[in-house]
């Protein structure tokens, strides 16, 4: 019981403080607005220009429920009354903190104190909304009451859900009741059925073909960015995820690819206007050579030292591009405009065509990365990542393999850069800041180091979600940061951690499989 109380107290304090913080920066109002947006179909907007108070109450209720859930103690079996007591403690603690804060803010605001000097979001209107357009004291009491009730509800919910065994048991009986439909064997049989897989792939292909047609150009632009970042992620995944070299200047290869493509196809400053597909090939080649240039001197460095040196390299490339020295070559800070666009039977590529091209290249990239990962080379990379000294003593030429990883990664970046420049029809030095490297590295880490589905998922989460969050305007990055923190706590290995390949006995030696089955 004592642990329930302390747990409740702790959870209450944490949630109370978080709520006050969010309130002070004005996020609670934004949250209520969003609830309002969702439920606006049914609820008419409040009378007399007032915002509907119910939305705010829903936000508080959600807070209370989570506060109660967080108050449960994981380690031991808890009696129901003890759990509810913990929830009540949490609710009252959080409610007290919140109530006092609201009371203070509300009455100070009524006395004419202007909070906007320090807290721009806390204007009188929103404070009135937070106090339910009534007296601050009664508003504070409402907060306390609401938190107490919903925290107990949350605790009850958590207590019920802790009956996992019971749930699992009933789920099992459900499964047998359904005639073993969900038995693992049947699922794997479906996946091992070639014809079925062909049908699935065809369906996925048709879906991928028609999606860009249905999306419209805005979504094509966003998804195009995501696709380019998937390509970048695949490349960096080879360098960081497989061979374990922390390269922070990845943007350098991206920039080289983009600029090579732009300078070879744009009418200014050189007027070469080369064939597009040849230019793409050349951008990949130049990026790869840049990788070689960087790699040869520094690949004997490890860990932090490598990270610092490559970080510098990324910045050097950007600064060189915009420098006076190279203005005649790169057009300096102005960037290169009207970069060449691909043609399809004489007519220029539409956004849909471009999206199709990107999808195709992403699929090819995934295929290549997968094949490499499962090969002898891929194993050598992972061995180097795990323990470089031992890998070398086991007979792996570590230098050769590290260079190879860097070159392949740079090639992916070169391709992505060429596509990036061509799609935007423009490329300038400020497209290639350090943030690009950091973003790509985040994609690899958030997705799960060395995992291919992880890269795809990571690119969607890191490049797609910020777009979806545009609704929240200023709070976009705050929410995004919070999501990242939560994710790193909940899934420290990444969204989709890499699984090592499973070798089946039967794969190598059919006789042995029989022997095992006889034993069983």
């Amino acid at each position: 019981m004592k642990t329930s109380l302390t747990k409740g107290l702790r959870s209450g304090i944490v949630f109370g403080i978080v709520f006050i913080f969010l309130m002070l920066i004005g996020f609670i109002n934004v949250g209520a607005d969003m609830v309002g947006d969702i439920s606006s179909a049914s609820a008419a907007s409040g009378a007399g220009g007032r915002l509907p108070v119910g939305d705010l109450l829903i936000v508080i209720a959600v807070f209370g429920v989570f506060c109660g859930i967080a108050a449960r103690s994981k380690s031991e079996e808890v009696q129901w009354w003890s759990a509810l007591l913990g929830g009540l403690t949490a609710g009252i603690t959080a409610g007290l903190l919140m109530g006092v804060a609201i009371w203070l803010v509300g009455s100070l605001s009524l006395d004419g104190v202007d909070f906007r000097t320090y807290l721009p979001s806390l204007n009188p209107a929103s404070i009135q909304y937070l106090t339910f357009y009534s007296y601050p004291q009664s508003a504070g009491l409402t907060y306390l009451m609401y938190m107490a009730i919903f925290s107990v509800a949350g605790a009850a919910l958590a207590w019920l859900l802790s009956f996992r065994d019971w749930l699992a048991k009933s789920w099992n009986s459900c499964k047998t009741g359904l005639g073993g439909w969900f038995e693992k064997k049947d699922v794997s049989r479906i996946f091992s059925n070639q014809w079925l897989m062909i049908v699935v792939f065809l369906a996925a292909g048709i879906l991928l073909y028609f999606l860009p047609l249905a999306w419209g150009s805005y979504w094509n632009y966003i998804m195009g960015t995501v696709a380019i970042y998937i390509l970048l992620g695949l490349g960096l995944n080879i360098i960081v995820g497989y061979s374990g070299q922390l390269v922070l200047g990845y943007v350098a290869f991206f920039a080289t690819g983009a600029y090579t493509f732009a300078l070879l196809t744009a009418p200014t400053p050189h007027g070469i206007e080369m064939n597009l597909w040849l230019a793409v090939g050349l951008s990949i080649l130049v990026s790869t050579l840049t990788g070689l240039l960087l790699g040869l001197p520094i690949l004997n460095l490890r860990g932090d030292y490598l990270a610092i040196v490559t970080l510098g390299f990324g910045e050097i490339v950007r600064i060189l591009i915009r420098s006076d020295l190279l203005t005649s070559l790169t057009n300096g800070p102005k960037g290169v405009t009207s970069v060449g666009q691909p043609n399809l039977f004489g007519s220029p590529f539409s956004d849909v065509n471009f999206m199709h091209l990107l999808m195709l290249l992403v699929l090819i990239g995934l295929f290549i990365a997968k094949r490499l990962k499962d090969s002898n080379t891929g194993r050598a990379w992972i061995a180097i990542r795990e323990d470089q000294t031992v890998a070398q003593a086991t007979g792996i030429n570590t230098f050769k393999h590290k260079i190879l990883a860097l070159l392949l990664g740079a090639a992916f970046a070169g391709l992505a850069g060429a596509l990036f420049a061509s799609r935007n029809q423009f490329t300038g030095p400020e497209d290639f800041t350090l943030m690009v490297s950091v973003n790509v590295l985040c994609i690899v880490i958030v997705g799960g180091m060395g995992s291919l589905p992880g890269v795809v998922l990571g690119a969607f989460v890191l490049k797609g979600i910020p777009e979806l969050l545009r609704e929240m305007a200023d709070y976009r990055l705050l929410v995004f940061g919070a999501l990242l923190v939560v994710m790193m706590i909940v899934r420290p290995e990444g969204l989709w951690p890499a699984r090592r390949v499973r070798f089946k006995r039967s794969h190598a030696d059919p006789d042995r499989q029989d022997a095992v089955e006889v034993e069983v």
Partner: protein
Amino acid sequence: MIAAVQASQVTKCFGGLTAVNTVDLIVPKGSISSIIGPNGAGKTTLFNCVSGFYVPDSGEIQFFGQPISGLATHQISKCGIARTYQNIRLFKEMTAVENVLVGQHHRMRSTWIEAIFHTPRYYQEEQKALEKALELLDFVGLSGLEDTPAYNLPYGAQRRLEIARALASDPALLLLDEPTAGMNPQETDEMTAFIKNLRDTREITILLIEHDMRVVMDISDQITVLDYGMKIAEGKPAEIQSNQRVIEAYLGPGAAALSEKFRRKKTLYAYS
């Protein structure tokens, strides 16, 4: 007698400390040789010189007549020297079978381009490597654990997996650094039998560092004793057991006299 390893006057210093001091070592082909000595005697340093982790400051190491000191470790590995480590160093995130596949790395010829296109040569090579890896896992007694990540294996299995990885490169010489460290008596006996079996069935020369005297005296054909980086004794187990300098090194100068007295006393009792 053909010498698998012939080290002459090998010296390795770290700053002011001479870890290995003008040591001569000859490991006959097909033998099991041991290096023993108190902690800090330079055993592992000598090992590291042979496997190429360190380049000796002076002296030369030959492997079947071919000088190897100064070569990179992966080249030495290609020559046919494989090793295990005192503190187990597996590729932890990889499965057991993958660890063994990495051991076969330098025998595989197909390039990464062939891997992308799955050429027949690549496919056959990969199949053959997999079969060999599974066979090796069977040999060291790890069948059934192929797909287990190395970090999930029990301690004894990790030691055996390390040996399997070393064997995967078809070495002519296997260096074992304290193969029975941290094992209970039964596991130690198993490991001892396993090492003997290894030499007999695979015709591999084995050089090992070991602290467990029971093991050393049981399986060694030849023992080299190091103390403060110097070789103080060399010979068959029985010779080493009665060597005065070895007893001094292990038990201190007084102990040698004591043991002499004890031996005489025992003889006296035997006569009386």
